[in-house]
Every structure is written in structure tokens, then in C-alpha cells.
């Protein structure tokens, strides 16, 4: 079975070889391509496979798995059709084939139960064959059945697959392929009567040397910028508890990762709204906010009630308890030595009225820096969606979400007003976020 699929065919049709053969009896192959809004997931059960190994020395095993690409389904018929015709060209290249030449790094020399290892072999797709290494786990059960699962990445560019322009507009450049398959031992008799394993010879004439190309070392991941803060109050009183709540994502509902501090500073902003952690908060500081006569334009009469509105609207919650409200109230009161008027919402409302003029007429390089300042408070570590995907969004869509214009459909995102995020800065950010040139790093960034 060395290297070539043709050998698989031979082995599968001729009966015997020193090593026992295992034929695929069930299983699923799935791929995922990241998209900014939704990942595209396709799967099929139409595959075939043969493994040749003895459990006593399984790392010497070889084999091949072939997938009928025309049977992949993603849930949308038109998309499936486009994928077959434009993207994978299944009429010319009907199958993808993973060939197993050897197993390296076996967790145990003999396969007695569960083991892991790394398949060294090649993957053929779209007429191109490339060396791959695929981490797998394998299990031999008491009844002599084998289950194999693994996962590997398929960069479209490596296989001359066009990054889809129409149908897959805005999708990633890599498919993550997973497989999970069951195999049963072939009876040791001439297998003529058995259903043949339908695997054909390679569709490419030249086979790349099996020598694996060195896997690229991953660039070191940038450390996540933390939201820096120190607790102002220690102890066990209401204001200290309120401050803990202020920094707690548990204050919100199920799935919430946001805290009050993601939107509000607790320090005086009169000297500037850029905090020490390098970010600007979308909403006003709570410093000196405690003595305002009313909140939320009159929809809340106390800071505690105002917090409850925030919790419902931005933290996936269903309202604070009275105890939580009063503790947050105590905290806000404690950082509000001075009197303050009610907020003027005219700026807020004005910001929610019109789309940005010439949204892509800014400076993308500047926009990237400004995005760190304004957006990364919440978006960089994937704390909130949609996926942070520069280069892949529509300008007006971004503006609509940032300014909370009609039809925004924000789930947690607050509105940035023109006072805190001026149009000129937003224009730079939108230019960066929507420029195709910005797209490359996205998927690297999201990988782990």
C-alpha cells in the first residue's frame, strides 16, 4: 500500500497478504469552512476505505480512505451544486483520497484498546496530491471492530481550488476536515463475493514524494490584551460587592461574557476617554454618575434600575435581583463624590439616525490601530461575535451595528455615539474592516 492508491485496489481485490485487512463499514466525513456569520458545514457518509495492519504492530499499517465529493451536503441545495460545479469540479475530480503510508508517534506499540498516532501520507483533492500528517485516534473494541477518527486542514490554495467568489463569498480559505469511521476485519478468504471496495486509481499522474514537507511553525500568538483594572474597594460591604459585580460576567445571563467594565470606565474621564488599558469604552464612565437625577433618558430612576436595563439589553440577562441592583448602586454611589446632571441624549439619538458618508474613504492603516482602541475591548479574544473578520464585511452593515441604526440586529453590542467615536475614526475603521487586503490574518488569528 505504499504511497499509491492503486496498490489499495490491488490489495482489496486480491485475497491475502500477510497482514489482515479492515474494510470501512460505516462512518462520516465532515468539513467546516469558517464564515463571518455562520460556518459552512458539509458532510457525507459516502466513502470507502481499507486499512492493512495487524494490531500487534499497528504503526506499520497502511491504507486509504476515499470520499465521494459529489455526495457532500451543506444544507442548501444551490450551495451544494455550486460547490460541486465551480469549486470542487466533481465531474473531473469525483473523489478526495487520503492515503496512509505509515503511522508515526504511536501512543503504544500494540493496539489493544484506544491509541493515538499520526498518519503520514498524502491527500489528493482536485487533481492535486500533497503530503499530509494527520493526528488520529484509533480504537479496537472487544468485538474486533476498529474505529478511526482524525482531523486535518485543507488550504484551498494548496489544491488549486479557487476561493469561492460567488457562493462562498466571505468564507475562509481553509476547510477543516474531520472523519470518524468504523472498520471491520475482512474475512480471510478470497473476497470475490464481497462488495468490492470502490476505489479507483489516482487521478493524478505524478505523485509527490512522500517526504512530508516541513509543517510551518505557527507564529506565536499575540498575548490577549487584558482589560486592566484594580479593585478600588476591599472588604465585604455593599460597595465592594458591587464592584465585584461590575467586573463579573456572571452578572449576565447564560452565555454572557461581557461585564459592566466592557462598556463603562469607573474612572474620571475628564482628562480623556482613552483608558490605561488602551481602549475606549462605548458608554460613559460611571464615575460621578451616581447623583444623576435619572438614567436611561428617564427609563430608570436609580443607577440600580439602570444597571438592570443594561443587563437585559447587553448581557443576555433577564433582570438583576434587588440585592445585585442595590450593591451596584452602592458601588456607583461610592465613586460619585460630585453632583451630575442627567445625560443629554440628543447626541445619542443623532448618532442613530444616519449612515456614515463615504464609509470606505478612510485610511485602512489608521483604521487598524483605531480598531484596537475601539473594538478590541470586546472583539479580539472572540469574547463576542460575529467573528472578527477584517476584509469580509459590508461597510453599511458595520456602520449599522456600530451606530445601532434601524435594522442593526445587535444582540449585545451597544451604540457608539458620534461623540465617543467620531465619524472620521469610524470611517478609518470601516475602511480597514472592509478592505479585502485586510482579510489575510483573520483565520490565523481565529485558529486556536
Amino acid at each position, binding site marked *: 500500500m505504499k504511497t499509491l492508491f492503486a496498490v489499495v485496489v490491488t490489495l482489496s481485490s486480491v485475497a491475502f497478504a500477510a497482514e489482515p485487512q479492515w474494510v470501512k463499514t460505516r462512518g462520516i466525513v465532515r468539513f467546516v469552512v469558517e464564515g463571518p456569520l455562520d460556518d459552512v458545514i458539509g458532510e457525507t457518509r459516502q466513502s470507502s476505505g481499507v486499512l492493512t495492519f495487524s494490531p500487534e504492530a499497528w504503526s506499520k499499517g497502511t491504507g486509504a480512505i476515499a470520499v465521494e465529493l459529489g455526495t457532500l451536503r451543506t444544507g442548501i441545495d444551490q450551495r451544494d451544486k455550486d460547490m460541486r460545479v465551480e469549486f470542487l469540479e466533481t465531474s473531473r475530480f469525483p473523489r478526495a483520497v487520503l492515503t496512509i503510508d505509515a503511522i508515526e508517534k504511536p501512543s503504544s506499540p500494540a493496539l489493544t484498546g484506544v491509541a493515538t498516532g499520526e498518519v503520514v501520507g498524502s491527500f489528493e483533492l482536485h487533481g492535486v496530491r500533497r503530503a499530509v500528517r494527520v493526528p488520529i485516534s484509533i480504537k479496537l473494541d472487544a468485538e474486533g471492530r476498529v474505529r478511526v477518527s482524525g482531523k486535518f486542514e485543507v488550504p484551498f490554495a494548496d489544491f488549486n481550488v479557487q476561493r469561492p467568489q460567488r457562493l462562498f463569498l466571505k468564507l475562509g480559505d481553509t476547510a477543516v476536515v474531520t472523519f470518524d469511521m468504523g472498520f471491520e476485519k475482512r474475512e480471510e478468504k478470497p473476497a470475490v463475493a464481497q462488495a468490492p471496495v470502490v476505489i479507483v486509481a489516482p487521478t493524478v499522474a505524478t505523485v509527490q514524494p512522500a517526504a512530508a514537507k516541513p509543517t510551518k511553525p505557527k507564529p506565536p500568538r499575540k498575548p490577549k490584551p487584558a482589560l486592566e483594572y484594580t479593585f478600588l474597594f476591599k472588604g465585604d460591604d455593599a460597595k465592594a460587592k458591587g464592584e465585584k459585580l461590575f467586573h463579573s460576567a456572571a452578572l449576565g445571563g447564560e452565555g454572557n461574557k461581557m461585564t459592566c467594565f466592557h462598556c463603562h470606565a469607573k474612572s474620571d474621564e475628564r482628562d480623556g476617554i482613552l483608558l490605561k488599558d488602551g481602549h475606549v469604552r462605548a458608554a460613559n464612565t460611571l464615575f460621578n454618575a451616581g447623583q444623576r437625577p435619572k438614567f436611561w*433618558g428617564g*427609563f430608570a430612576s436609580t443607577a440600580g434600575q439602570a444597571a438592570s436595563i443594561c443587563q437585559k439589553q447587553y448581557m443576555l440577562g433577564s433582570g438583576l435581583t434587588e440585592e445585585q441592583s442595590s450593591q451596584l448602586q452602592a458601588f456607583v454611589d461610592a465613586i460619585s463624590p460630585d453632583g451630575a446632571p442627567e445625560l443629554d441624549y440628543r447626541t445619542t439619538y443623532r448618532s442613530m*439616525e444616519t449612515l456614515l458618508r463615504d464609509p470606505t474613504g478612510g485610511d485602512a492603516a489608521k483604521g487598524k490601530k483605531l480598531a484596537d482602541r475601539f473594538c478590541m475591548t470586546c472583539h479580539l479574544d472572540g469574547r463576542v461575535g460575529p467573528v472578527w473578520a477584517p476584509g469580509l464585511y459590508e461597510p453599511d452593515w458595520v456602520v449599522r451595528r456600530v451606530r445601532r441604526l434601524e435594522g442593526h*440586529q445587535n*444582540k449585545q453590542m451597544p451604540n457608539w455615539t458620534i461623540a465617543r467615536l467620531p465619524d472620521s475614526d469610524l470611517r478609518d475603521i470601516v475602511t480597514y474592516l472592509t478592505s479585502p487586503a485586510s482579510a489575510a490574518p483573520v483565520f490565523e488569528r481565529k485558529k486556536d
Partner: protein
Amino acid sequence: MRSLCFAVFTLLTGCATAPAPKPEPAPVVAPADAPKKPLFDRLGGKGAIEAVIDDFLGRVAGDELINSGFAVGHVPRLRQRLVELVCAASGGPCVYSGRDMSTAHAGMKITHAQFDALVGHLVATLDKFKVPAGEKGELLGLLGPMRSSIVEEP
């Protein structure tokens, strides 16, 4: 608060999209031989509708069950749309410039309880202004059918 607004929108939109109201049977309170004026006029015109909406929004603002959605919205625009909606729905000389009820409320996860609360505030407001039972019934009758477009629970 958002729920409330929406419900009101709904009510109004329903009216607006309905065929031009033909004269309805006279309300119970009206003399049998009175000329049948449009609901808009019987409610007291645009000034009266604005007063009703203001009072109504005030009640919504104070109701913690529904006010959070309204608080984070564009309140002046909402008020304007509500007035347009009621005005147009009741046969007045207004054009509703907002979106349809389903679109406007999409994703807000409004519950039946919130919708009911909003209707309750509208009833309270209409009672405060001593709107006769007939007119009140007509107005609320426009609201009911919008429930399915606004509420997102079974």
C-alpha cells in the same frame, strides 16, 4: 419598553395597511343617528393622539418588564412612529413611515407577557383620557391581530 412600542406600532400598522376605513357602526356610546366620523376624529385628532402616546410611553418607561428594550432605542423616533401609526390607522391624515411589525421586532424575543403588559398600559392610558368604550374597543381591535407578528414565543 420596546415591546410596548412595538405593540403600538403593530396596532397602528394594522390600521394603516387595512383598506381605507369605511364608516363603522356607531359606537355604543354614540347616538344612533349621529353621523359616522372616522375614529381619528372621534379620538380627538392628532393632538389627542400625541397626548395619549406621551402618557402611554411614560407608563411603559416605568414598567421594568418591558422598558429595557425601549430605553436603548431611539425614543423620539419611536414616539413619532407611534403617533403616525395611530393616526394613520384611525383614518387620520398621516403616513406611517416605520417598518412593518415583524421586521421592527425581529430578534427582540418579545413574550406574550410583555405584549400583554403593553396592551395593559394602553388601556390604562385610554381610560385616563376617558376614551369611550366603543373607540377604545376599535383601537384595541387593531392591536390584537399584531400579536403574532411581534411575539416570538409559541
